[in-house]
């Protein structure tokens, strides 16, 4: 349903000089009102994709829409908030002036600018620092001001590139709360982050980019579904019939105990196993529903199964198979 999509990208491609293929035809959809996380190792093309959406980088090829308008449509940017990675606002401005300036550049009227700046400085807890120059701010304070600046135009879509970069755990939690409140207000948030635990906590859906290609996309449940298993620890050796349930027995350090794994089982499928164990009076020590974390999934995707080596940074050289570096 195109009307329900905040971002609908199709075949986004970027080839830099030297035939470095940073993006190799990315297609992705982000629904309105969701928090969408973009993951990937360094050089996977995450920032390039964000910058193409924000017209900072010209795509080699791109189709699709953002907020219903073609990618690169300048007036639409008035409805988008953007916090770039490693942003550098002028240090001679105060926090308040910075937020006001960013609002004015989005065409926000003076009255609304003042009102929104007051409100957002409160939201990011920078009200007491509003008249101090940015040159006196810490990295975390800069991020808070940047976050306020990205919301000051009352955007329908907020694009955040590493918003928790350099901030302490308290501020991270506050930023997560701000993101959740944005979702509650019906805004769409597109989050580009290295911090997988952050993404896991706050995102409705994620996409993983690897070497300029979309490797996985979906909700965290969907992405980790295949890794779901039941892990039952019993006392004594594994029963002979474990094969009937396609289970796998793993010996533990304690020779008196055995761990049995049942890959892909749901609660209904595991009930007959428990019944059989009880019927044979085998002592069940624990039953756990185990699922991969986002970090486990990510590491699995970036690790070569055969060699065990993790994927190097950088895009591919167009027309070749290997890494650029």
């Amino acid at each position, binding site marked *: 349903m195109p009307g329900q999509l905040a971002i609908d990208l199709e075949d986004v491609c970027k080839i*830099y000089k030297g035939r470095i293929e940073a993006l190799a035809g990315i297609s992705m959809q982000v629904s309105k009102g969701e928090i969408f996380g973009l993951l990937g190792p360094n050089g996977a093309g995450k920032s390039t994709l964000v*910058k193409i959406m*924000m*017209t*900072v*980088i*010209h795509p080699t090829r791109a189709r699709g829409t953002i907020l219903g308008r073609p990618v690169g449509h*300048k*007036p*639409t*940017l*008035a409805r*988008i908030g*953007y916090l*770039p990675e*490693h*942003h*550098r*606002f*002028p240090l*001679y*401005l105060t926090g308040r*002036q910075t937020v*006001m*300036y*960013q609002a*004015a*550049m*989005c*065409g*926000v*009227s*003076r009255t609304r600018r003042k009102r929104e700046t007051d409100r957002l400085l409160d939201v990011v807890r920078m009200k007491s620092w509003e008249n101090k120059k940015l040159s006196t701010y810490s990295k975390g304070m800069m991020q808070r001001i940047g976050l306020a*600046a990205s919301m000051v135009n009352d955007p329908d879509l907020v694009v955040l590139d590493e918003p928790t970069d350099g901030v302490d755990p308290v501020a991270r939690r506050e930023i997560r709360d701000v993101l959740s409140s944005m979702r509650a207000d019906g805004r769409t948030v597109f989050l580009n982050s290295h911090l997988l635990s952050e993404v896991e906590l706050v995102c409705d859906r994620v996409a993983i980019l690897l070497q300029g290609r979309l490797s996985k996309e979906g909700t965290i449940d969907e992405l980790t579904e295949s890794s779901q298993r039941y892990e039952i620890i019993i006392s004594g050796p594994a029963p002979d019939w474990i094969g009937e349930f396609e289970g796998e027995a793993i010996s533990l350090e304690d020779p008196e105990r055995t761990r049995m794994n049942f890959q892909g089982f749901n609660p209904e499928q595991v009930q007959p196993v428990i019944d059989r164990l009880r019927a044979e009076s085998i002592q069940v020590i624990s039953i756990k529903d185990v699922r991969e974390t986002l970090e486990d999934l990510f590491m699995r995707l970036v690790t070569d199964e055969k060699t065990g080596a993790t994927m190097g940074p950088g895009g591919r050289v167009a027309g070749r198979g290997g890494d650029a570096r």
Partner: protein
Amino acid sequence: MIITQTIEMFIAAYRELNARMIFWLAIVLNLVAVAMFATIGNNSEGLTILHWTIEFQMLSTTWFTPAQFYLLVFYNVGIAIWLTWIATILALVSTSTIFPDMVIPGSVETLVSKPISRWRLFLTRYLTGMLFVLVQVSILAFGCWLVIGIRGSSWQPTIFLSIPIVLAFFSYLFCVCALIGVITRSTIASLLLTILFWFLLFCVNITEASLQMIRVNRDLTVESLVLELEEYREKDPDDQRADRIESLEDELAERRESQETWHLVTDIAFTVKTVLPKTDETIELLERDLVPDELIFRSRDDDENEEMYTSDRVNRRQIQRRMVEERRGRSVGWILGTSFAFEAVILLIAMGLFARRDY
């Protein structure tokens, strides 16, 4: 939206300049220059500074009325030295950061991701740089206008012509500064290379003026020979005169050959100059409107080194007069038109690079 963005960019530019010590230093120096201008004057004995008098007949009221004195000082010192050299260097130092600061990573993303075209963004930033010079020149022009009006009893509105003329002069350099800033993203590189470009223009101007002087010398020599030859021809012929006529004809032929060579050389220099911005001529436009011809020649005719330039047929006064006439004969359209065409080309290249580049 366009008005909101433009106003806010100008306010931001003011804050940027305000944050720099050199902006206020330049303003203070301009005010000091105006104050110094107000302290000098001339009387029947010579130059006056506050209540002291320095005997110097050349600057006395015998030679120049107070109004003429102030106009000459305003043009020869205020414009030709202060604004076109010292203030311009200060302005370049202050504004050379505008474009490198705009395109550095982290800053450029916050600007180009806004609903404003890159072309408009570039042009607005360019105009904010020009604003700096506008403030400086306006202070000096207004201050000098008051001084000349009050102390020289001559209210000259033409003094305010210095504002657009000095702005045009600065813009020739600032466009190069902007281009280098966009390419290199370095303040030091853009400042140094702009000053190098300015030095190149200075060299071209000096070379062209020197070649013009030699050519004018040849022209005047030929004209003098033609005149003398006609005088001899008009007189009754005798053997002695016939020999002289023959000798003059030989000399004329030789001089004409040399004249043609120098015409070719100056034509080449002129062509080179045509494609470059004309810094000297632009400032001299103010002289045309501000300083009367007789005042220019009177001040130049008093040169003590005249003998250095005097030959058997042509003296320096004649050469100077002819050169001034020729330079003043160059049209405003040619001076400003070709200079602005250069500026437009440089700006188009810089804007094109800025608009096409990935950040």
